[in-house]
């Protein structure tokens, strides 16, 4: 994810105090007291304190924290299911905490769809009618909402279940209905509150995968709440870590794992399977030398001997990777007086995208002993991964 993406939601100085004397609690907070001290002194709970972050257009942002960290409060402040005590939440030029009741209704209908931990499906409505709910209350006409609901049910794989009632479905299917209800609404942001936490682990994994695919396809800005770090690392483009109502760290899964902001985060990330999170980009090394496709065999040989290489990558003018040549072959070509290395190119070598996790990378070392080339989507050579670097990264897990 690049920084050039547009900002969808800006959250600034957001705080929430539970209790009737919020001002006093916030004053004590500003004087430097922590959550426990404020609770003891005033009986007020500081649910969220001074939260600042941006949600980028089209990203899947995970807000992660243990219970009591304020993550549920945070997501509910965004659409004001819980009234924030202070701060700004800006979406589409509107500041949500300042909206009138009517404007808030409008804002919820246009911007937010929500998926809930315990599904919160309407038991008296069929699957189809559940999916239609958001459209129905907006006054969309019958034919149109039926069609939209149908297509979103299809997207989550519930075709043919339109006339069933929620209590006839399994948990995983019920949550698909919840997701379909959110998608049918076609709002600009998807809020998912511990959406998969109530599902059993196998189904949960499937749902995560499907969400990633769906999100990738639709580019729907998604804010996903979870208490499960594995889930956060698995699905998040970025992760916000919350503790005691404050943000501890914001970063990509890899950053959270490899550069934990403090001990709290580090302890969190202990025991995480790094091979699934650390990417090829992280462990790759720069390529010391490459041959150009129009280099003659003698030039190539010299480059190889200067860098003590047995084989060398061959790239074109745009650094696109064409193949690899081996010293023996080039040597023979030079002796034979040939002036091109084209016919020596070996194209059957391991390569991988920069964002692939180590888990994918590792099996590639079984065959030939070439390093694995890391290439971007234009086939340009970014670096190489050698076996040692992978092992080194994996070993770090064991040490902790």
């Amino acid at each position, binding site marked *: 994810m690049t920084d050039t993406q547009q900002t969808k939601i800006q959250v600034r100085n957001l705080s929430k105090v539970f209790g009737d004397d919020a001002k006093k609690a916030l004053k004590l907070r500003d004087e430097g007291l922590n959550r426990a001290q404020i609770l003891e002194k005033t009986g007020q709970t500081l649910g969220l304190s001074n939260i600042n972050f941006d949600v980028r257009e089209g990203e899947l942002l995970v807000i992660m924290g243990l219970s009591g960290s304020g993550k549920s409060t945070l997501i509910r402040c965004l*659409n004001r*299911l819980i009234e924030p005590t202070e701060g700004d939440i800006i979406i589409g030029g509107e500041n949500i905490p300042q909206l009138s009741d009517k404007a808030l*209704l*409008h*804002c*919820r*209908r246009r911007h*937010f*769809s*929500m998926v*809930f931990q*315990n599904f*919160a*499906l*309407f*038991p*008296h409505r069929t699957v189809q009618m559940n999916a239609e*709910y*958001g459209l*129905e*209350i*907006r006054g969309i006409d019958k034919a149109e909402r039926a069609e939209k609901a149908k297509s979103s049910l299809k997207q989550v794989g519930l075709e043919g279940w339109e006339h069933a009632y929620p209590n006839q479905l399994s948990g995983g299917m019920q949550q698909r209905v919840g997701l379909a*209800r959110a998608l049918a*609404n076609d709002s600009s942001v998807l*809020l998912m509150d511990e959406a998969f936490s109530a599902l059993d682990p196998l189904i949960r994994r499937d749902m995560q995968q499907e969400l990633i695919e769906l999100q990738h396809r639709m580019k729907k800005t998604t804010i996903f709440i979870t208490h499960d770090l594995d889930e956060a690392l698995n699905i998040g483009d970025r992760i916000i870590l919350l503790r005691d109502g404050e943000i501890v760290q914001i970063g990509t899964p890899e950053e959270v794992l490899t550069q934990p902001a403090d001990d709290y985060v580090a302890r969190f990330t202990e025991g995480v399977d790094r091979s699934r999170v650390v990417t090829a980009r992280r462990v790759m090394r720069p390529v010391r030398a490459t041959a150009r496709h129009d280099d003659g065999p003698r030039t190539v040989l010299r480059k190889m001997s200067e860098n003590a290489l047995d084989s060398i990558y061959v790239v074109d003018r745009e650094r696109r990777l064409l193949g690899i040549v081996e010293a023996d072959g080039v040597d023979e070509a030079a002796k034979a007086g040939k002036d091109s290395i084209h016919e020596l190119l070996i194209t059957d070598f391991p390569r991988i995208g920069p964002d692939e996790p180590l888990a994918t990378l590792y099996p590639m070392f079984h065959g030939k002993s070439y390093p694995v080339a890391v290439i971007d989507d234009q086939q340009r050579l970014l670096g190489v991964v050698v076996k040692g670097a992978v092992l080194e990264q994996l070993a770090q897990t064991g040490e902790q």
Partner: protein
Amino acid sequence: MDFDIPRIPLGDWIESGLDFLTTEFSGVTRAISRGTQSGINLLNDGLMWLPEWALIALVVLLCWKVSGRRLALGGLIGLALIWNLGLWNPMIQTLTLVVIATLVAIVIALPLGILAAVSDRFYRVIMPILDFMQTMPAFVYLIPAIPFFGIGSVSGIFATVIFSMPPAIRFTTLGIRQVPKDLIEAADAYGSTRSQKLIKVQLPLSLPTLMGGINQTIMLALSMVVIAAMIGANGLGSEVWRAIQRLRPGEGFEAGIAVVIMAMLLDRLTQSLSGGKKTK
């Protein structure tokens, strides 16, 4: 003690209050009285117009549809017995009063119950009033009914409505408040207005509880219209009342058994109606 503490003239106050209401609002009460009386006549005539066997057939069919063979059989035997005892007309009169009193009670109770569900303040105001209405001995309502509406069925309905309304209000409130919080949250999150939330989520989900309240109201209404015979309401109650005055236990029990049959039929019917909705 020597101090002579004056007796608080609570009864006098209530009487002068009622007097005030009767004189100042006589136009209103008379209009209500006329309206109710014509409602009673209409329904009564309608039910009377149907031959006995036709009504029995209708009820049996209804029992069969909503419940099953057992209730249908029970209905057949029960109603045939009432017909046989010559209590058909009083039974119809009682049924008319119950139906009208229940309808009026529901029409008043539903909005009040909804209001008490959404407003905590109104809830705190109305709950003690409901306690008062339910614990006050039922006979007491009969007394002010007479100056308001005169002797007869309208007064009976007035007293019946007051006596039978509280459970309908309570159950409506309870039903709406029992709707799971996460469903309310879901309705809110998608931007439902208050009335959308009420109509599309809260009321449908409180329907089983609400039907329970209506069932209670019908039962209380039945017991009250019987008592209301004391102020001239027609029906099975006046048969019982006459039997008491003439010391005829046999006739009294016959009318009493007819009331029991009606009560059981009405109870089972409304119960299976609400149960039928729930299993859907």
